[in-house]
């Protein structure tokens, strides 16, 4: 029964858990942004909030369902793509996965105290969340790498274009490229 119990409880309380988790995630933004990101009724006028909300909803369903690794990866991908281009440190970008442990414990405090949710159940779920946290970090790095790749691609394309036009001489963009490399070294 053990693991089943926690998962069943999570499924039964899906709405409350999702609300608390979503609040935790968008709480990391400024007050003004929080206000807008919280409105998830229009996915096109609020792409950040609605995409995060939808992804958390799906992640949660997987966590109390099959916990399919591919599906979890897919749902996490959108959140991490978003967070990799926003103004936050990597630790903060992935913290929501670990923060969910506290949300679970708070939501089911009574059940835990009454022994309905066993330590073993919690440990298993914590393990899943740790794995997802690491997966989130992989995705964060993958997104960051993609940004650097896109940047290099643009530099190369500009370079090729200038070369084609016989404009790649000493004066044109050598100093800009130097400055680019300075930044990469920093």
């Amino acid at each position, binding site marked *: 029964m053990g693991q089943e119990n926690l998962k069943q409880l999570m499924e039964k309380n899906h709405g409350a858990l999702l609300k608390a988790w979503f609040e935790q995630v968008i709480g990391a933004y400024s007050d003004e942004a929080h206000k807008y990101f919280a409105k998830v009724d229009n996915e096109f006028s609020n792409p950040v909030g609605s995409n995060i909300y939808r992804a958390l909803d799906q992640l949660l369903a997987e966590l109390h369902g099959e916990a399919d690794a591919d599906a979890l990866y897919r749902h996490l991908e959108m959140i991490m793509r978003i967070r990799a281009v926003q103004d936050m440190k990597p630790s903060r970008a992935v913290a929501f996965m670990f923060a969910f442990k506290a949300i679970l414990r708070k939501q089911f405090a009574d059940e835990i105290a009454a022994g309905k949710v066993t330590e073993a159940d919690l440990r298993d779920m914590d393990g899943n969340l740790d794995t997802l946290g690491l997966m989130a970090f992989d995705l964060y790095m993958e*997104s960051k790498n993609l940004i650097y790749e896109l940047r290099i691609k*643009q530099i190369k394309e500009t370079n090729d274009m*200038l070369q084609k036009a016989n404009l790649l001489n000493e004066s044109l963009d050598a100093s800009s490229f130097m400055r680019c490399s300075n930044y990469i070294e920093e």
Partner: protein
Amino acid sequence: MAKLPKPEELTKIDFKPPVTSWMDTPVDFKPGTFSYPGRPESLNIIGFPNPRQWQPTDDDWQLPENWKEIILDGLRDRLDRFRSLKLFMDVCVRCGACADKCHFFLGSGDPKNMPVLRAELLRSVYRKEYTLAGKLMAKMVGARELTVPVLKEWFYYFFQCTECRRCSVYCPYGIDTAEITMLARELLNLVGLNINWVMGPVSACYRTGNHLGIQPHGIVDSFDMVVDDIEDITGVRLDLSYNRKGAEILYVPPSGDVFATPGTYSLMGQLMLFHEMGLDYTLSTYNSEGGNFGLFTSNEMMKRLNAKIYAEAQRLGVKYIIGGECGHMWRVLNQYMDTMNGPAPANLEVPKSPVTGTVFENASATKMIHVTEFTADLLRHNKVKLDPSRNKGIIATYHDSCNPARAMGLLDEPRYILDHCVEWYEMPEDTIREKTFCCGSGAGLGNDENMEMRMRGGFPRANAVKYVKEKHGVNMLACICAIDRAALPALMDYWNPGVDVCGVHELLGNALVMKGEKKREENLRFEPLQNLEDEEA
């Protein structure tokens, strides 16, 4: 010594950022979110002040000693000259209608990307200097002193606005926030604060007539390559003319389409169509750029760069001008050219299609029409033979490029062309036509160093593309802007891998049936045609 937190303690971290008033939150320049400054060589060419080597991350920006006086005098001068600026400074009631309309705010959540607050960066200084309440009560009425940190904030956020004007669509007072950004950039330029991705093209354009700085023989070489490619694909050799006096039409594309893919494919489609229609047109190796980065610099610079359009049309004695698939170019041409450098030279006439006889009265002042207007009219009169099956395998959507959509109301012509050429689907209503979302890279921000910010700002657009990609299998994002064609591929690679970018005329060129053509086996990208593959199978 700081104690290492245990894992369970990590979850107790308060993730909320510290709350400080916007006035007291200084800018933090992080790589990936700002553009490199203009090179002194570029500034010297156009005679702009304070040329020097510097970086936004430097503590000392090497401003002129009297920088504050220069900026405040500059602001006073512009308030006197431009009633619109005075109005925009006074009339905003901070209703918030614009707040969540900016793609940079929607992608970042940074409150200073809300158009109202972006404008407030300038307005706060205006209040302090020019209103009684601001002088007396300062912070209470949102007024503040102009300081170096404020100036740094201006640089950061006014070069974080793409001048797309989506916010203006929603403003009940019609405040044109792009014009506020333009004026703020003008002020910044007075003390030498600008970005290389703008100043490089501006100085190159001033010297050679195009953003890359390509000289006349280089222009001809590039067109030759395009003509060679067209011949390889269609078997038809185009005979282009340059600087030909007495031609009926002067055609001015954005130079991005002459030198870089996927723009070249769209240019190929236009040149093929002109050939097929037997158009009497010429290209100019001096007026070799429809785009005008002066728009992102100062109104005087915009005027200087725009002057060549009419000058060349006059020199060549053409009757009217067709402009290519460019975005910001059309804000300049449609809204500013007539005021800046008009009236049009006497040799220019109201554009009239030699094929259909349609008179484009909408362009009776400027004497210049957009190529999609010209093409849509041809299609309306059944003058073009098309085989849309050559676009088989392409499922397109259409991105309304900001300026043609919002600055000239060019909404239906590109769609009409797509209707005739390709299977395509609209993105959701709030993200198209005059409500279109910016690519996130306009107004000079499409440089590589700003990539993270571009991905942030482009997310609302990418999110709408994602919707039609998932719903209809869209794999091609069509647009009518050269900056879009340069910027959107990276945006798609990040958010929607598998979606490519093209100009509307590339799809027309694929479908265009030309007299004397050989059996088409490849599209304009030299990729095998899918309809033939299906036939063979």
